[in-house]
């Protein structure tokens, strides 16, 4: 196993008091696997990613365990984190224009990762930069290396971001909506490139997206988040064919509309509860068409609803009754370890 999150909770300070943004997130990513995280805007996808990278806002309270290659990194000091960021784990952001420093050449920005994490000398670094630019599919690499971000197209910039992230062959790559800011054809190229790089480098990828089309294209497994909690996770085919959670069903139902009018996820009626006013029962209760009495009172546990398929919904309460959370997690782990 490459990455494991164990009951990760995150609280951020808002207007002077702490609100819980992530609630007991548990997930695993294996080597060579792409895990998608989907959900409506504000459900905590980016915060999950930033918790792993520990690039959180000030005064964030992070609880739970984060294991990267069996190392507990959630207790790492600043120094130790700087060592693994960019080296073992790397991240790509949504808008490649604003994510690149406008005043440095792109070559220099790729080189910086190498300066920080390798002993290569100047010449070797130059060579590696050219190599990386070729790897991410940019022709005339030596010319591009001396260009500034504003001189490149959106797709090229995102390829640069990928090169920056790939420079030290990270074992984990986190992508936060890497294609949202790009147009459709470029989007497909970037996704192809990421698929290719994953196969070549055997890394694990977390793919955060609004777009179920992207999920279908690159992911092996999908995690559905709602209001700071994971509500369902399953293999890609299983999830598309056999969604269990009413929220996931709602998301999938919005796909046909996607084809006609480009709407984002969340054409489900109603509003996501705000983090400081979470209901005590199921967070989807207000919007759920299959809501029951128990849903308002008690938070649904994570239930095994199929092979490697988990859903947090009272509709699928385990027959054997109140199994505790850790044993359920063990069950999942066992199923994930082939």
């Amino acid at each position: 196993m490459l990455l494991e999150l164990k009951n990760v909770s995150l609280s951020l300070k808002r207007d002077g008091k702490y609100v819980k943004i992530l609630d007991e997130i548990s997930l695993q990513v294996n080597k060579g696997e792409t895990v998608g995280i989907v959900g409506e805007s504000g459900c905590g996808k980016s915060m999950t990613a930033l918790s792993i990278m520990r690039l959180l806002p000030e005064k964030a309270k992070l609880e739970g365990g984060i294991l990267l290659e069996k190392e507990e990194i959630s207790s790492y000091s600043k120094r130790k984190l700087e060592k693994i960021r960019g080296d073992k784990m790397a991240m790509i952001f949504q808008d490649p224009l604003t994510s690149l420093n406008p005043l440095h050449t792109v070559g220099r920005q790729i080189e910086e990762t190498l300066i920080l994490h390798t002993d290569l000398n100047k010449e070797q670094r130059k060579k590696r930069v050219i190599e990386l630019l070729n790897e991410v599919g940019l022709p005339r690499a030596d010319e591009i290396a001396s260009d500034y971000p504003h001189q490149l197209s959106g797709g090229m910039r995102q390829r640069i971001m990928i090169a920056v992230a790939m420079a030290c062959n990270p074992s984990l790559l986190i992508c936060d909506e890497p294609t949202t800011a790009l147009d459709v054809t470029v989007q497909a190229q970037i996704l192809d490139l990421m698929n290719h790089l994953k196969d070549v480098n055997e890394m694990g990828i977390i793919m955060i997206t609004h777009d179920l089309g992207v999920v279908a294209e690159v992911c092996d497994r999908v995690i559905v988040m709602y209001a700071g909690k994971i509500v369902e996770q399953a293999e890609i085919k299983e999830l598309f064919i056999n969604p269990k959670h009413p929220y996931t069903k709602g998301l999938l139902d919005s796909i046909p509309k996607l084809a006609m009018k480009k709407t984002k996820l969340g054409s489900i009626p109603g509003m996501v509860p705000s983090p400081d006013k979470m209901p005590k029962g199921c967070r989807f209760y207000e919007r759920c068409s299959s809501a029951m009495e128990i849903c308002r009172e008690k938070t649904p546990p994570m239930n095994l609803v199929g092979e490697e398929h988990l859903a947090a919904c009272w509709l699928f309460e385990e027959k054997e009754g109140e199994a505790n959370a850790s044993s359920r997690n063990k069950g999942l782990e066992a199923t994930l370890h082939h």
Partner: protein
Amino acid sequence: MDALRYTLKRILLMIPILIGISMLTFFISNTIPGDPARLAAGPYADAKVIEELQEKMGLNDPVYIQYFRYMKSLLQGDLGNSNYSHQPVMEDIKQYFPATLELTFFSMFITILIGIPLGVISASKKDKIADQFARVLALIGVAMPAFWLGIILLLFFYLKLGVLPGSGRLDTGLAPPETITGMYTIDAILTGNWTVFTSAVIHLILPGITQAAVTIGMITRMTRSSMLEVLRSDYIRTAFAKGGSERRVLYGHALRNGMMPIMTLLGMTFGHSLGGSVLVESVFSWPGLGKYAVNAITYLDFPAVMAVTILIAVLFIIVNLVIDILYQVVDPRLNYE
């Protein structure tokens, strides 16, 4: 090449601006009551002498003739004779301006050395103790009258402790170094005269700090706000995601991006101090351009007023040009337009 063309274009553009400024100054000074001839002749001269002098100084010609005459000699490097010091204004300026230039360089050096790092620390430790401290310090610097600080420093370091000199540019008894730039510290280095160098630096300390106090406050505040804005940018997060340390991100990525408004303010204050700071120069008896200008105005020393005005205008334009060129050096997105 582009940079060169741009610079040349900007220098050519200086010409109409300077003509405009010289005209304005000339005609305004001419409408001010007061007769330079009478002043030059002294209080006991009789009317005939004054009349002769008026004729000799060309004061009876129409103003535009006087203006052209002035501009013609200006282009030949002749700024006329001072009615007060009775020597060519050019000589006066050669004597007074380097003193101001030296003081300005020194105080700007202190300003940059303290103001920018203080602002960066203040922004990176927002709302923490270091930030509060820096902000209070900056506020005091901005709010405190320079002459008052000057007097306090003078009282303390000169009168009470006696560790620093309180006036002039050199210890009495020391001869100024051979004039190369007119700035004593530089000339002393160039001629290898270390006694003079030390004395010159020591004399710069109190007036330099006094002049820097205000600008440090301004630069700190500007650096802080500019950095706070930059630190919210996505590329700062990218720099951290690569594994950059806080120091590396602050000084390697953020500062250069936040430099534009800081440079603008630095340029303004630099240009401003080059005109001479009357208050600081008075408190520390610093023989600089500010003092010279006040004298010139007090004695209606018309050629001197003209010369100082034009000099300050030229300096401002040059500083602006340098800042504009620096913008392009800092930011590749601005291409010499």
